[in-house]
């Protein structure tokens, strides 16, 4: 069986353009490829995680035009022209996003597998500007499962960044 030659896949791929972490990428993608699989398997951006492939766990959360989305539920071809930010694109050079630093300082992860999704989700949450109390953060971060149980530390990390941005509501919980 060793002489099986690689077979080229003869399906019609569609041309799309995505801006991924600031870089314009002209891609040729079959219509059934999800954004998550595109990132992980073709762009070698494995920071976005696959935890369920069904939009149930949030590990694949990325920012699409600044909004948090489950990349496993998005077909890449439906995002032609969009700007995608993944965990690999949050830091500016060596300068971490404040959320990344806060997650480290608060030990807001253990195994780290849900972490990129948590951080991207928190980034989206900050962009939304809706969460201003601990309870609101807990509620609005509930689309991101963490099986290691780092939830309280995740909330601490997000609250610290909210506080530093002056987005916190006084006399909150």
């Amino acid at each position, binding site marked *: *069986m060793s002489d*099986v030659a*690689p*077979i*080229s*896949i*003869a*399906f019609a791929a569609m041309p799309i353009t995505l801006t991924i972490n600031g870089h314009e990428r002209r891609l040729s993608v*079959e219509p*059934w490829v999800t954004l998550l*699989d595109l990132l*992980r*398997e073709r762009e070698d*951006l*494995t*920071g*976005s*995680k*696959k*935890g*369920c*492939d*069904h939009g*149930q*766990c949030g*590990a694949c959360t990325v920012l699409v035009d600044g909004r948090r989305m489950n990349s496993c539920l998005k077909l890449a071809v439906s995002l032609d022209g969009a700007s995608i930010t993944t*965990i*690999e694109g*949050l830091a500016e050079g060596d300068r*971490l996003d404040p959320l*990344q*630093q806060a*997650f*480290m*300082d608060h*030990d807001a*992860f*253990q*195994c*780290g*597998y*849900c*972490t*990129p999704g948590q*951080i991207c989700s928190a980034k989206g949450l900050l962009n939304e500007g809706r969460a201003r109390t601990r309870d609101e953060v*807990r*509620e609005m971060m*509930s*689309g*991101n*499962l*963490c*099986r*290691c*149980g*780092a*939830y*309280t*530390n995740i*909330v601490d990390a997000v609250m610290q960044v909210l506080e530093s941005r002056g987005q916190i509501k006084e006399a909150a919980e």
Partner: protein
Amino acid sequence: MNVLQNVGIGSAINRVDGLQKVTGRARYAAEHPVPGLLHGVIVSGAIPKGRIVTLEDSEARAVPGVVEVLSHKNRPHVAWFDRSHKDMVAPPGSPFKALYDDKILFSGQPIALVIAESFEVARYAASLVRASYEVEPHNTDFHKAQAERFMPSKKRDTYHPPKNRGDADAAFAAAPVKVSAEYHLATEHHNPMEMHASTVVWEGDGSLTVFDKTQGPQNVRDYLAGVFGMSASTIRVMNPFVGGAFGSGLRPQYQVYLAVMAARMLQRSVRVVMTRQQMFTHGHRPEALQSVQLGAERDGTMTAIRNSATTSTSRYENNMEDVVIWGMMNYACENAAGEYAIAPVDTATSTDMRAPGAATGMTFFEMAVDELAYAAGIDPLEFRLKNYSETDQMNGTPFTSKALREAYAEGAEAFGWSRRSQAPRSMKEGRELVGWGVATGMWDAMFSKTSASARLSANGHLEVASAASDIGTGTYTVMTQAAADTLGLPVEQIAVRLGDSSLPKAPVEGGSWMAASVGAAVQLACRSVAEKLLSAAAKMQNSPLAGASMEAVRFSGGRIALRDDPARGVAITEVMRASGTDVIAVEETASAGISGMISQMRKSRNTHSAIFVEVRVDEELGVVRVTRVVNAVAAGRIINPKTARSQILGGVVMGISMALHEESMTDHRYGRFMNHNYAEYHVPVNADIHDIQVIFVDEPDPEVTPLGVKGLGEIGIVGTAAAVANAIFHATGKRVRALPITIDKLVDDTVAP
């Protein structure tokens, strides 16, 4: 003034692998790039028991991009004998061998692997594989399986049989206060966030590099060598990052077997990733039934313990757990009898899941103790203190240390337990019933022989290495701190390598033994480096350290200096330069040693905890919120308070989950776990988790392990579910004895208040 930050044992430094994790640079098993990679997608069988009659794969093979479809019909040779398929933690029995023959042993069993040039093509083609079956009668109903309850003649080697004392039957019969209750635990699946995955790199010369999701790279290496008749030296298993496991990665899972089989057959690199649904087709926490009967005098003195349990296993392997011993060890009670057996169902073999045995058995025992305290009319914390034992009551041995009394005290103080009113339903606030519950946790403090290497370079850079794993537990950080502690180097100068089968020998990451074991191995290796350094330093011209012993010097801030006169010393890099040494490389093995073995025979070694929980129950809706938890843990020396706290937080969250959420539901007609996804298999989300306070009580214990460390991976979950259940009783007056305590059980009026 010394402004150097202490980074050694006891300091709360940030997790050293944190930067890789928050930037997405940490690569997990399915994320290592390989040129020319093939993707395998597993086809799961549809029936729980029987045999495959036809397996039609021509449609799948016709899809452009499909390279091969592997099944029992065309698989390459694997070892014939069971013993070649046994991994180092396998229970007695005949291990499952995927694609071995046409037999189906459990629902969801892998029956084919479709291998294609892309993941999407493999996934599509896998949907085209058709099988027909001859179905045999099966049973997945654990209650029915009680009829087949048995004690295997060959026990699992980790199993500890209960040792009875006194006459429990007579004492129970005579007890003026008694409770008798039956408890049930639903099957749970570990469901780590990362699904089981393997990337097998075909190296061209027949050797393999396997990136695998495992808790033991050397276990997987030896297993693969046995199954495929390969020399272990031609297989390198790597798991530098593991996205959680909780026990599911102790044994090699079938995806690594399938990926290696395909890579060898096709002589190409192959990746296989399970789906979330397939994560419900291998190990799980066994379903359990436990019967606890307790007797006491009217003043609350315990007089009788009868503790009996059954856990589920498969038809082909006999998995066993220590379920009934915990309560028998923990309480002062003259009469105690324990009994345990297993019962087979037609599922995959159950396996260790966080605190196997104790999470089940101590939880139910602690629920029964709460019932007895109420029967005696005594505060449940006071009742536990009244029956407190300084010694291991079952084995009749002292503990190396047991600061449970301090844990009760500090936990109660932090929680405000003294403000509790005893009567159920007495603490209503608004429309919510408030309940406060307490429970005890207990786990083993184990140590396992482990090796580590240390390599100091001329520039003062140190690398320590061991084939240990970090599954989120903090092993990288523990090894760093053990090294920093011994050689006084800053974290930036220490690199840790783990998760690689080619490194010095280490056990699987499990049982809470890793920090104590690998920490000791690293310390030994670094001490050996330190001795060599001192010897070289002493030989330097006009050495300030001439004639100084190891005890007389201190390694700190990259220098070796006299303890009594820290100004007199030399920099490590200077020692290396002066002695013309490029590198100091050593390997050491930490083992219990003779004194340790004697101590192990004569003393019990355990962690303990006291858990206090507040619940708020909306009685109309049956919704339970766990609003406050205090978990006070006595676990010896704490290497890193920050990562240690996280371990306990995680255990508490999983304990709350056990109490309220987790349940793999079987449709017995199909013998299949039906809620096999994250939407229907409930685990807590962020909004479910409120305030959790972790306390580590002071418990110096130089005897328990070389570093005085007891381990923390399991203790956080043990007893937590009991404290939740006991708090729910206090809030509502309802004893729900089947976990998880879901809404239906609370609103069910047939459960007498």
